[in-house]
């Protein structure tokens, strides 16, 4: 590792300034760089190659403009798109670079643009300001050089984080002169993208101070609750962790893209084959016929050798036939996808008005994959749930208060003045008014035992700074019932109890941790000593302690704190000592509110055969409860497998059991060594799934998942998981989320979608085929990493079933038609080759070849690709089964491609041989000779335009005004351009470029030419109609049936919504929250986060402990007991 040293005023030159560039080009570099990038695309390079071929006169069978016009057009469109994108990047760069911050220059604070900030500068930040660069925190307005930051833009977490300055630097305070003289040297690791790690040290005044992440404020953070702070810039501009993280995102491709690339390669192969056939034909022809013919026609023949002639012909034909892979294919696909993306952005039904959040297609190239999703991986918190906790029920002294809100029975909620708090039970208020001591005790405890920080705003408004929302919900509930938590100091808690202000002495604070799963506050007021234990959100218990006992225990605790090697164990023992013999007061139930429409969405997606896996960092109970509340788990499931083994062997055992249940004992469980074959089987797409009937669910824990994801178990895990209707992975790390997605992606060959809202979902969002970010609530990180974003989980239904389905449907139709069209267009040259001595003579006019794909036929197909709908959006939502064809890849696959190609070949055959038969012995109505090459060309070209227009008309199932305009307009354009190019005027100016003068006029006035066109059209199109009609009649797809139905509906009445409401089957289940984060206890008791000067440090109170197991088990039992007695009537298998 190379350390890089930086110091104010020294070696500044090698550090970048704070200017950031996300833009790719500037005015000068745009053209070369953009062109270079574009020609890196195989297709563009290929066309450049063709262009070069066309410049060789010996083989140039087409004028250079036939290639260069479309190529320039395609390059221009792409360049314009890139330029616009870059313009916006420039704009946002400028906006960011020109933000102002206060920099200490020459001993004075001066406003300076962000881009001029250098490493080593000292910056003053004020509350709610964005941090300009990665800073070493020097001092702040808060005591001990503390400051709070919000890292939402960095990692998506909205809870505040604390940063401490080094004590030595925090003394500097706001003293500008001392700060200006600050000349510490920071030695640190080179710039990297690890957001949660920093190592380095500060050398100042002959002392060395270690630095870690706690001392660093990163660019992109926002300063909160701190009126000012000073920091020294460590990394600026591109070196900042934010910029280091905004690396190049992996370019995602859709399966259609990959298929398209394969097909294009095949077509290249086909092209080469045709070229070879024609070249051989040319050699033979030259040998048999041309030799004699040549003597007659040409004086001095360059090409005497028939083999060499064949070689040249090969290249000539490659040029002519290149239109089977049209340049416009890729650009058309992009245009269509862009159109679909706009439709997503414009969709009012995916617009969340409460937060004014639009759905946004952030990646415009993946739309059709939305119609092929098989697996959805969803985060829980913030995605399925709102991450809003509401105090919904409680049980005090055996009596239960509060009812679940049910849509059937309308209960008028109690409305409280604060925060729109709703509670549906009046009896609780009655009990409080009556002064039930147990009830009072209950709420007093809620108001005391927590880590909430109150903040009094100017108008006496009390705002709670909460670390976890469930805690906030409890304190707010207590407040609403008259026990208002007012303020706290390190030693006291002030609560207003039914109007009476009481101050409690805080004696000890036993912070929450994940192992004990409880938190205690030991306090006292004038009248009685008081000990309480709050098993947060679940059970509330208390214990009265006498003073001697407490003192004794406190001594024990202090001893434990002094212990060096076994401190944690001792503290745990001490905690265990006091947290016993508690009086159970009651329990609370905090509902983790589901987002709107989650149940319906999940039901509908399940009907669409989309499997939804929930991957959450939450604990198992919470995850399961959410599973029940959104009907992913139901009571009538055959079996819910819970995998929670701690070792690989246990997990193996559990999986084996699950498998036995699934398949019966007959199917043996493969041992770990035979897994390779198993994986192969899985890759091939196992059919075992069908043999298993019944609904199963799989719930797996993070640590078990770790084992299950190991190479020798993953196939088994995947197999079982894929059979299960519901899979819930809880306590998973972000990395595991991504691993699960990768596993399914790799072995199921299925299209996956990951949806989440937090920073912990980023890895999964990035690794899934499609990543969806929930926008509008937490930070932006998930959204920034995502391909699509919207505000509510329920919009997923519309995104997939409507937009995705349509996109897929349209794209498939587009591709089918596009390949068909170009084969029909191009292969005519192939047939003609046999009648023109394989001389690479084109059938059409060169201008026609140039314009066919980009003018005559481009718009109708784009209109179809953008606007077509087979069934209405309402029906797409109502019949989720319509989504199946996309998952099974039915609308465009290799066999479909061959059908399209065959169709194209057939059409080209008809297009060539019908005119051929007629022209063989043709004379005009006036006896004049019309069997000339030019008339032949015009006849076939006109037939082609009409045939492909009729074909697109047949393919278009949704005829909007735009389709009409484009289809009729294209045919009209063709004729007007035809007559223009065959006009006298243009011939007079460019006689060599437009030699077709008068042709349209003469041949298109001949009746038999029109008879040829009509015959060709009917022969090309009628079989298609017949085939489709028979298919719809004999084997109607669901889409066909619904279209039929739609026709009837349209006739009968305007479309009425007949949406089915999925019912919640188990109303008793509800998503109750369990907290799972370590608390703020240490900060509170240490008083560090309070502006009180006199404090004596009590250290180590909130330390975690790991190895006391007996009481954990006790607690677990206690927990489940309480839960069972309270809200659940089923035993949850733990």
């Amino acid at each position, binding site marked *: 590792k190379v350390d890089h040293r930086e110091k104010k005023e020294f070696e500044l030159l090698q550090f970048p300034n704070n200017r950031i560039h996300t833009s790719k080009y500037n005015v000068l570099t745009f053209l070369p760089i953009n062109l270079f990038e574009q020609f890196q695309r195989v297709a563009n390079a290929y066309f450049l190659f063709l262009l070069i071929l066309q410049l060789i006169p010996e083989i140039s*069978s087409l004028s250079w403009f036939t290639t260069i016009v479309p190529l320039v057009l395609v390059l221009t469109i792409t360049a314009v798109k890139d330029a616009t994108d870059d313009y916006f990047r420039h704009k946002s760069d400028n906006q960011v670079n020109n933000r102002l911050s206060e920099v200490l220059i020459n001993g004075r604070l001066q406003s300076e643009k962000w881009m001029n900030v250098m490493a080593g500068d000292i910056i003053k930040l004020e509350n709610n300001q964005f941090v300009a660069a990665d800073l070493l925190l020097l001092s702040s307005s808060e005591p001990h050089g503390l400051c709070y930051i919000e890292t939402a833009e960095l990692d998506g977490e909205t809870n505040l984080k604390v940063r401490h300055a080094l004590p030595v630097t925090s003394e500097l305070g706001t003293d500008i002169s001392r700060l200006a003289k600050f000349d510490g040297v920071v030695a640190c690791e080179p710039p990297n993208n690890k957001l949660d790690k920093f190592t380095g040290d500060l050398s100042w005044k002959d002392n060395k101070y270690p630095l870690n992440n706690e001392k660093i404020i990163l660019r992109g953070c926002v300063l909160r609750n701190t009126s000012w702070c000073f920091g020294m810039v460590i990394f600026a501009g591109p070196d900042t962790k934010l910029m280091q993280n905004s690396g190049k995102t992996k370019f995602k491709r859709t399966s259609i893209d990959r298929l398209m690339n394969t097909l294009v390669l095949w077509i290249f192969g086909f092209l080469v084959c045709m070229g070879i056939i024609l070249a051989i034909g040319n050699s033979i022809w030259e040998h048999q*016929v041309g030799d004699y*013919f040549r003597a*007659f*026609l*040409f*004086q001095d*023949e360059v090409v005497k050798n028939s083999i060499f002639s064949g070689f040249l012909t090969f290249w000539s034909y490659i040029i002519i036939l290149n239109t089977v892979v049209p340049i416009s294919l890729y650009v058309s696909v992009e245009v269509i996808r862009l159109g679909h993306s706009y*439709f997503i952005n*414009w*969709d009012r039904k995916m*617009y969340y008005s*409460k*937060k*004014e959040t639009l759905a946004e297609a952030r990646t415009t190239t993946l739309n059709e994959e939305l119609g092929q999703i098989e697996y959805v991986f969803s985060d829980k918190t913030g995605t399925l749930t709102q991450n809003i906790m509401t105090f919904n029920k409680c049980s005090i002294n055996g009596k239960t208060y509060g009812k679940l809100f049910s849509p059937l029975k309308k209960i008028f909620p109690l409305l409280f003045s604060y925060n729109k708090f709703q509670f549906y039970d009046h009896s609780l208020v009655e009990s409080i008014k009556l002064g039930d001591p147990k009830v009072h005790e209950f709420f007093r405890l809620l108001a005391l035992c927590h880590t909430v920080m109150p903040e009094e705003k100017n108008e006496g408004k009390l705002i709670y700074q909460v670390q976890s929302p469930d805690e906030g919900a409890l304190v707010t509930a207590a407040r609403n019932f008259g026990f208002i938590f007012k303020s706290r100091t390190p030693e006291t808690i002030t609560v207003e109890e039914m109007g009476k202000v009481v101050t409690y002495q805080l004696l000890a604070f036993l912070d929450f941790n994940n192992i004990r799963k409880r938190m205690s506050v030991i306090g006292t007021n004038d009248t009685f000593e008081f000990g309480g234990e709050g098993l947060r959100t679940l059970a509330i218990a208390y214990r009265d302690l006498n003073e001697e006992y407490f003192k004794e225990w406190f001594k024990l605790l202090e001893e434990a704190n002094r212990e060096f090697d076994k401190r944690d164990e001792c503290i745990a023992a001490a905690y265990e000592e006091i947290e016993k013999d508690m009086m159970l007061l009651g329990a609370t139930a905090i509902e983790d509110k589901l987002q709107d429409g989650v149940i319906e969405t999940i039901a509908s997606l399940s009907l669409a055969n989309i499997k939804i896996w929930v991957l959450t960092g939450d604990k198992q109970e919470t995850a399961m409860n959410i599973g029940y509340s959104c009907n992913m788990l139901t009571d009538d499931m055959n079996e819910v497998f819970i995998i929670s083994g701690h070792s690989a062997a246990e997990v193996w055992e559990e999986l084996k059991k699950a498998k036995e249940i699934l398949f019966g004992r007959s199917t043996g469980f493969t041992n770990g060594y035979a897994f390779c074959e198993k994986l192969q089987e899985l890759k091939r797409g196992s059919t075992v799934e069908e043999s298993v009937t019944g609904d199963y669910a799989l719930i797996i824990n993070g640590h078990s998942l770790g084992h299950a994801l190991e190479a020798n178990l993953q196939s088994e895990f995947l197999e079982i998981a894929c059979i299960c209707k519901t899979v819930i992975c809880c306590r998973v790390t972000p990395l595991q989320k991504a691993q699960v997605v990768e596993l399914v992606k790799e072995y199921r060959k299925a299209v996956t979608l990951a949806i989440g809202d937090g920073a912990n979902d980023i890895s999964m969002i990035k690794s899934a085929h499609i990543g969806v970010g929930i926008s509008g609530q937490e930070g932006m990180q998930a959204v920034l990493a995502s391909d699509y974003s919207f505000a509510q989980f329920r919009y997923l239904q519309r995104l997939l079933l409507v937009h995705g389905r349509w996109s897929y449907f349209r794209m498939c139709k587009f591709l089918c038609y596009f390949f068909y069209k170009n084969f029909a267009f191009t292969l005519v040259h192939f047939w003609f080759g046999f*009648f*023109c001595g394989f*001389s690479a003579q084109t059938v059409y006019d060169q201008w026609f070849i140039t314009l066919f794909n980009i003018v005559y036929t481009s718009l109708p197909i784009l209109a179809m690709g953008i*606007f077509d709908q087979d069934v209405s959006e309402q029906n797409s939502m109502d019949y989720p089964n319509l989504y199946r064809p996309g998952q099974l890849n039915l609308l465009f696959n290799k066999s479909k491609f061959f059908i399209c190609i065959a169709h194209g070949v057939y059409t080209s055959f008809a297009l060539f041989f*019908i005119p051929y038969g*007629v*022209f*063989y*012995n*043709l*004379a*005009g*109505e006036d*006896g*004049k*000779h*019309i069997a*000339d*090459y*030019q008339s032949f*060309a015009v006849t076939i070209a006109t037939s082609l335009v009409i045939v492909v227009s009729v074909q697109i008309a047949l393919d*278009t199932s*949704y*005829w*909007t*005004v735009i*389709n009409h305009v484009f289809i009729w307009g294209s045919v009209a354009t063709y004729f007007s351009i035809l007559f223009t190019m065959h006009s006298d005027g243009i*011939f*007079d100016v460019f*006689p*060599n470029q437009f*030699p077709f003068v*008068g042709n349209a*006029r003469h041949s298109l006035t001949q*009746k*038999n030419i029109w008879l040829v066109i009509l*015959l060709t059209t*009917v022969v090309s199109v*009628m079989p298609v*109609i*017949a085939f489709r*009609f028979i298919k719809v*009649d004999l084997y109607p797809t669901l889409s066909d049936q619904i*279209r039929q139905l*739609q026709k009837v509906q349209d006739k009968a009445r305007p479309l009425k919504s007949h949406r089915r409401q999925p019912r919640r089957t188990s109303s008793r289940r509800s998503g109750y929250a369990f907290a799972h984060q370590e608390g703020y206890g240490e900060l509170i008791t240490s008083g560090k986060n309070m502006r009180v000067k006199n404090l004596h440090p009590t250290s180590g109170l909130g330390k975690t402990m790991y190895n006391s197991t007996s009481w954990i088990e006790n607690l677990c039992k206690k927990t489940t007991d309480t839960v069972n007695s309270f809200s659940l009537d089923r035993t949850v298998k733990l």
Partner: protein
Amino acid sequence: MERNSNDVPGLLSRMPDNTAFKQQRLPAWRSHLTAWAVLPGFFTTGAFFLGMGILLILSAKSVKEIEITYTSMCSNCAKLRENASNFYKECTCSVPFFIPEKMPGNVYMYYKLHNFYQNLRRYTISRNNRQLLGEDITNVENCAPFQRDSNGIPIAPCGAIANSMFNDTILLSYYPHSSTRINVPLLSSGITWWTDKHIKFQNPRSNNLPSAFTGTTKPPYWRKPVYQLDPENPENNGFLNNDFIVWMRVAALPTFKKLYRRIHRTGPFANGLPAGNYSFDIAYNFPVTVFKGEKGVVLSTVTWSGGSNLFLGIAYLTTGAVIWLAAFSMTAVHLKMKKRNIVSES
């Protein structure tokens, strides 16, 4: 966050417009292949095609056409022409034939070439339209390999197409009796497209055609320079020569016929060609046997659909028949399906 969106929906700036276009609700007609549209459509189209096929066949049959291939009949001339050294030797050949039925109305005379590839790419591009416009007769660009002669003098008209011009002269004689012979009057006018004659081809502007072509030389395979193509009609010379214009309109396929003359409807031929004995008197100049080609003359009348063209009629008839066949089978399938559906529904 607590903003109430229902209050003033108009004020929400970010809300997408509620237009039919943006919401994909454009009024549209949904196409659907219903039996009611497809089956009658098939029957009608089939009927139309059958009718049209019969009509086309009948009218093709009504066309009187006689084709005489004279390469083998004039084998001595053909032999002679195989040797390039006999280039300037005259060779004539008389081909007698019999017209069994009267050819009424306008009768057209075509020459027909077999196996002559006028559609070779290098052949078709070997011309210069600017030169043929008479503006710049020394412009021989694109005319390779017939741009200039060995002295470097530009060729007019340049290029392979012009060089290979069909140069047989064919005269038609009628024998009302075995002893009398009447030359059938032939018109060389009106055999070109109007646009070719008036726009595409122009003589260089000059009072005297030969002087207009000074500085150029004749194509190597030609006997006479371009301004002497028609010795009888001085108007029919230079680039405006009708035979030249017809030749320059290259044929699409290797077997083709080009209009050579029209029968002038005067005297005994006012109503067309009467039945009887005829002969072609051919000045055999154009060598075809070297490339295994053949030459012929075609006499033909025309109808509304052009000349005799059985292919179109047969194609229409076949297509019509196939469409009807398809229509019947589709109807059968449809009725069967309907029955089955009714059964399954009940």
